[in-house]
Each structure stands twice: as structure tokens, then as C-alpha cells.
């Protein structure tokens, strides 16, 4: 049983969750993720591991569809049906020199272990985060503590640069900043745009892809992405990939696979209809 030892809504829709799982706490490396199930009916939801402490680990979860909603609606002391991890390859980490990191939505939290590790390795770390509005920014103090420079962008201009991570990035580069390495975590759009910006400057760029996943162990192939014309499984070959070689167009299309179904699940969620279940299983006795 996987106990939720801490849970609160950091900013609207983004929840901090601390769960007891000694294996993950002992083993997790920056860039790895866990798979969570709230209950027996839930999907298996991949979530980035942000930090570990004693026998617990911390995550930030964005409420999106039914399965993430179920998790964030649980309370401290509740137990999750399943927690599996750590999964995925650890992020590439080295002494690069000057490194730029970009995070949006859950990526604000997910970029943190990378920033900290890169800093510890002796890099100069420049961190940029984005949100729709100032009240949706979170985890800033922690990020500042492991960054040499720290920038914020908001879509409505209520704090920092008016715009997105890529707008700050473009400005820094135009102003003569030279980066030796870049990493981005967040929505696919942001990661794609930022990769397009660093490409002409030949800044080695890694992105942490959030494909649809199922088992997370390389068994099903549902997380496949094309990187440099080769099919890769994001759960075992990634999630971190070279942003300049990801087939972004294909990735965007694959991510929208279940749009209709997800809406249906969310709308019909609260009432589990026993009659329907019976009808489906053909059990009419």
C-alpha cells in the first residue's frame, strides 16, 4: 500500500504529492518517473519524480483528465492502488558549462532535480519557467536556490516576460548569451518551440517527452516516438531525447489519440454504472 503522506494544492490545479515508497526513494535519479494508479479502475499515469526524502518521494500533479483528477482528490493518509518506479532512463548529466533549463506546467517541478544535479556538477544554471498568469507560478524559491540566474514568463504579462519560455530564451540568445546545453520539460508545444530556437545555434538540447504510456517497461510500444527516423520507446529509451531530432509533428498527432474517450470518461466519472458494466460483460444472470 502506498500512503500519501503529504498533499496540497500548490497553485490552482497543480498539486504537490508526497508518497511513501522506499524503493523509489532509494533509487530515483534525476529525470526518472513513476507510474501511479489511484484505484483499481484508474489508468496508469506517468508522473515525474521531483525529489526524495527518507522513504518518500515528491511529485507535482496537474489535474487534467479523470485519472489525474482521482489522484489529486485523494487526501493525506489515503493509499494509492499502485505506485511503480523509478522508471525511464536518468537524464544525461555532465559538466557542460553554461546550461539553460526551461519548465512549464508540471515541468516547473520536474526541472528541479535536473537543475540541482547540474548545479552540483559545477555548471552555471539558467532557469526559465512559464505559466499563464502569476498566481500559477510555484516552487520558485526552491528553483532559485539551485539556479545562477532565474527568469519567469507569463502569458498575460502579470509577472516577468510577457510570453513563454521561448520568448525569454530568444531574448537571452539575441543579447549574446551562449549556452553549452539546454533541457526543457513541460507541454509538447513549449519543448518543440524551444528546440527550434536552439537548433540553429547548435546548442545540444534535451527534452523530456510526455507521451501516452501504459506499462512503462517497454512491453507495449504505445509510447513510441520517432527520433532521427528511428522508433524509440519513451518509457525505456527516454523520456529524455534530443529535441533537434524528435519528429514533433508525429508526436503531437499521437498525443491526441484518445481525446473523445477522455472527455467521455471525465463526464461520466462519478457514477460507476453497474448495469452498464453487466451489459458489457454479458453477465445477465
Amino acid at each position, binding site marked *: 500500500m502506498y500512503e500519501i503522506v503529504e498533499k496540497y494544492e500548490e497553485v490552482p490545479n497543480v498539486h504537490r504529492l508526497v508518497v511513501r515508497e522506499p524503493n523509489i526513494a532509494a533509487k530515483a535519479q534525476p529525470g526518472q518517473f513513476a507510474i501511479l494508479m489511484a484505484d483499481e479502475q484508474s489508468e496508469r499515469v506517468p508522473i515525474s519524480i521531483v525529489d526524495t526524502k527518507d522513504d518518500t518521494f515528491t511529485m507535482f500533479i496537474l489535474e487534467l483528465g479523470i485519472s489525474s483528477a482521482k489522484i489529486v482528490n485523494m487526501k493525506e493518509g489515503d493509499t494509492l492502488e499502485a505506485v511503480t518506479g523509478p522508471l525511464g532512463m536518468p537524464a544525461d548529466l555532465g559538466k557542460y558549462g553554461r546550461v539553460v533549463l526551461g519548465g512549464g506546467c508540471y515541468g516547473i517541478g520536474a526541472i528541479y532535480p535536473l537543475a540541482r544535479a547540474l548545479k552540483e556538477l559545477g555548471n552555471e544554471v539558467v532557469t526559465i519557467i512559464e505559466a499563464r498568469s502569476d498566481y500559477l507560478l510555484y516552487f520558485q524559491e526552491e528553483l532559485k536556490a539551485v539556479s545562477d540566474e532565474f527568469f519567469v514568463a507569463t502569458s498575460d504579462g502579470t509577472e516577468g516576460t510577457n510570453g513563454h519560455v521561448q520568448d525569454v530564451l530568444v531574448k537571452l540568445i539575441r543579447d549574446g548569451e551562449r549556452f553549452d546545453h539546454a533541457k526543457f520539460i513541460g507541454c509538447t508545444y513549449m519543448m518543440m518551440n524551444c528546440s527550434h530556437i536552439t537548433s540553429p545555434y547548435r546548442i545540444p538540447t534535451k527534452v523530456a517527452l510526455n507521451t501516452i504510456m501504459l506499462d512503462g517497461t517497454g512491453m507495449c510500444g504505445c509510447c513510441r516516438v520517432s527520433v532521427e527516423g528511428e522508433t524509440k520507446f519513451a518509457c525505456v529509451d527516454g523520456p529524455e531525447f534530443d529535441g533537434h531530432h524528435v519528429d514533433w509533428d508525429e508526436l503531437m498527432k499521437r498525443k491526441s489519440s*484518445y481525446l473523445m*474517450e477522455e472527455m467521455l*470518461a471525465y463526464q461520466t466519472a462519478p457514477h460507476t454504472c453497474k448495469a452498464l*458494466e453487466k451489459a*458489457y460483460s454479458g453477465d445477465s444472470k
Partner: protein
Amino acid sequence: MSKKKSPAPKKENAKQSPKDKPAEKPKRPPRPPRTKMPEQPPDIRIKNFVEVPYGLTPEEAQLEAARCIQCKRPKCVEGCPVSVQIPEFIALIKDGHFAEAASKIKETNVLPAVCGRVCPQETQCEETCILGRRGEPVAIGYLERFCADYERLGGHIKLPKKKRPNDKKVAIVGSGPAGLTVAGDLSLLGYKLTIFEAFHKGGGVLVYGIPEFRLPKEIVETEINYLERLGVEIKYNHVIGMCKSINELLTKDGFDAVFIGVGAGLPRFLNIPGENLNGVYSANEYLTRSNLMKAYLYPTYNTPIMKGRKVTVVGGGNVAMDCARTALRLGSDKVMLVYRRAREQMPARAEEVHHAAEEGIDFRLLSNPVEIIGDDTGVVKRIKCQKYQLGEPDDSGRRRPLPIEGEYFELETDLVIIAIGNNANPLIKATTPDIETNKWGNIIVDEFGRTNKNFVYAAGDIVTGGATVISAMGGGRKAATGIHRDLMGIKDEDVQD
């Protein structure tokens, strides 16, 4: 101890002697025909996920059991990879001792309810049954299923006597048929067993691959329950290699031996254009969504699955049949099966091919996809296939399929499921580099499942490549013997069979 099976004489002589010959000497009454298993009619069953055959009644089972002539040197046993004591258990059924019959089977096969349903009997025990020479073989599979069901449904499952606990701990990685067999065997010998399973449920392919309508999940749960009652501990959500390595199990966690039964879980793709379009599934993904995650009960269960109006399944094995028949049950209008050989050469169990055909699966044989074509939103629209013909027999003895130059056709389809087999999942090898594997990534073992690493054993699909439930169990049993001998310091040479 591999058994080469000679091809059984087929039913050339099945016709009874011509009736115009006057009876000269009194003949034995004709043997009653093989019992037919009642099953859901095709038009009903394609609308539900309930098991297709209903099973035999006790009367039917006894009638069928009476057909067995109790051979002194039973050929059927030679055909069974684990040498189930077939005439003995059939005799017990005939006399009405159903629970005892189940115990008899369990002496060599711990999962009779599963094997009775999914063994390819026609190439194993029933192929070699002597009655098959002049007519139809005894329905060994049906009988095996019958007594296992009788035992389970009647609550007759008894815990066998365990040996006194010894102080040895064994870790088992993977809860498929191989792992379950090792757990069962060793716990009876007094070992302390812990199974580590990557998923949140146990059973391996039995829960995530084989569909409910062929193997009700309740059966697998009963088996797992039984192991837990024997004292086996199961740790779910543990991906060995990620949360712990094999070496750590032996050192940090203090296990005396580790058994690897992780199956062959890396889906093969065709490597043709269009394979990453929306609406192209690997069989593993499709079946895992439907079976393990219960997408067929969507949205009560939250994992979605694409239904597809016109579905194309690529492949000709059990996995392909399971995908095709699942698609029908999920409500697809038309399901086509593209396979590059002919129907006789399909590796699937005969009963599954027969059921699939009855249910209206459209077999597009001697053809193979070359391209999947999508629209500009990245969704599958059509599949382009090349026609094939049969050439000379290949290594497997089957006639080799050869593409016919320039002959192509296209099928309209909005869902494509690739069911052409699995390779070995590289996770264990990647995290335990010093374990010896062959060029396909399968772990190399000796006769008793020993790998090159001390106190590390393996069996099942990770050793053999995709095979059968019963062969995985047979391998598991051998490995259990190997583990027992090594931990007790018994040398192979000192043991005579």
C-alpha cells in the same frame, strides 16, 4: 529431456467400415463419438466477453472418460510436455472421483484449469492419443478443464502438505506461468518465496494477454490466491532492474537464489511506413488495454481503447486470433486478418482458428502489409498489402511464403493491430550485463534452468522466445529442481531419474 513428436497419422482411416459387408464375427460396439463441448453460439458471443465454451457436465465428462482405453504404454503422456498422468486421472473421472482426478493432474501440472483451456492439445497430448489413429482422440483438454473447474467451483481446493520450512529465501522475478510454477514447487519444499511482479496484477500473459472469453481472470486469481495461501509473498509494482537489480536481490536483500521468468515482452513491429500513425497498435498494447486495464468496461474503467469500424489484424498465431476476436467484441463492424502463409500453417491453436472463423473474421491469407496509409491528421485510412504464394518448405518444415512481384491490394481500415510476435525484453540484460544471452537476447540456461551466474536461474519465454504456457511451466519445474539441488548441495550426478 526434449521430446520429438512424430507427426501423428491423420484421420485417413476415419471412415467406418462399409456397411455392405455382412458382419462375420461379432464386433465391438462402435466407440462413442468424442464429446462435443457446448458453447455460446457465435452471433451471441461476439457481443460479450464471457467464456465461449461452457465446460462439460459430470455426466458428459464420465462419458468422455469412458472412451479412453487406458493404454498400458500411453502415447498421450509422451505428447504432454510435463507428462501429466493422463490415463490415471481419466480413470478417476470415469469412476466419479473428480477432486482426486484434479489432484492427480496437479502432481505434474499446477495450473490445470489454465492448461485445459489454452494448451494446443492437437499438437501435444491429443495428437499422440492412440484413438486419434482411427478416429477422434480422447478430449484430454476438456477433461483436464472439467476436473480443475470442479475442484475450484466446488471449493475442494486443498492445500497439500508442505515440507518443514528451511531457512532459504528465493526471489522470483515475474508472475507468469513459469514464475508461478517455481513458486508452487519450491514453497512445497519448504522455501520462503517472494515474487516480484512489474504490474499491479499477477499472472503475466494469463492476465494481460489472453482475453477473458478464453481464460476467465477469476481462474488466474484463484491460482494466485492458492500460492498466497501456501505462504508465497507477492510484491506487485516492482520492476526488477529499475527498483532493484538481480545482484541486489542476492546481496542486499539476502535471497539465496533468484529465478527470472520475465517473459518475452518486447513487441515486434513490421518496420513499414505508417506504423506510427494513430490507430496502429501492437498486440501487446491492444490486449493489455482490453484485458489488464479492462478497457472493454470503459468508461467504468478509465483506460480507453480505440474501437475501429474496420479492423485489420496482422499475424496468424494465438495472439492475432485474440486481437481479432477482441475487436469484434468491442463492437467493430468488420475484422480482417492478414497473414502471409495459408490457414493450415497458422501457428494458433486449431480451436481458436475455428472459433475465429465461426465468428466471421475475414481471413486474408497469403498476403503481407507493405505500407499503412493515413490521412493528414495522422489517422489510419488504408493498408497496402502484397500477395504471397507458398514455396519450398523452410527450416520449420512449413512451406516458405514468397512475395509475388507486382501484386498488391489495399484494404480500407481505421485500426491496425500488429500481432507478429515478441522479442526478449532487454531490461534484465541491460541492468545485469554479465548474464549470458543469445543473439536474440534470450537468456541461456542449462538443463535445470541455471544461467551462467551463480544462483540465478531462468525459464519460460525469456529463455525459449514466445512459446506456450505449458512449456513455460515445464521449464519452471526444471529450474525449481535446479534451485533445490544447488541450495541443498545435491549434485546432478548423484541423482538418478
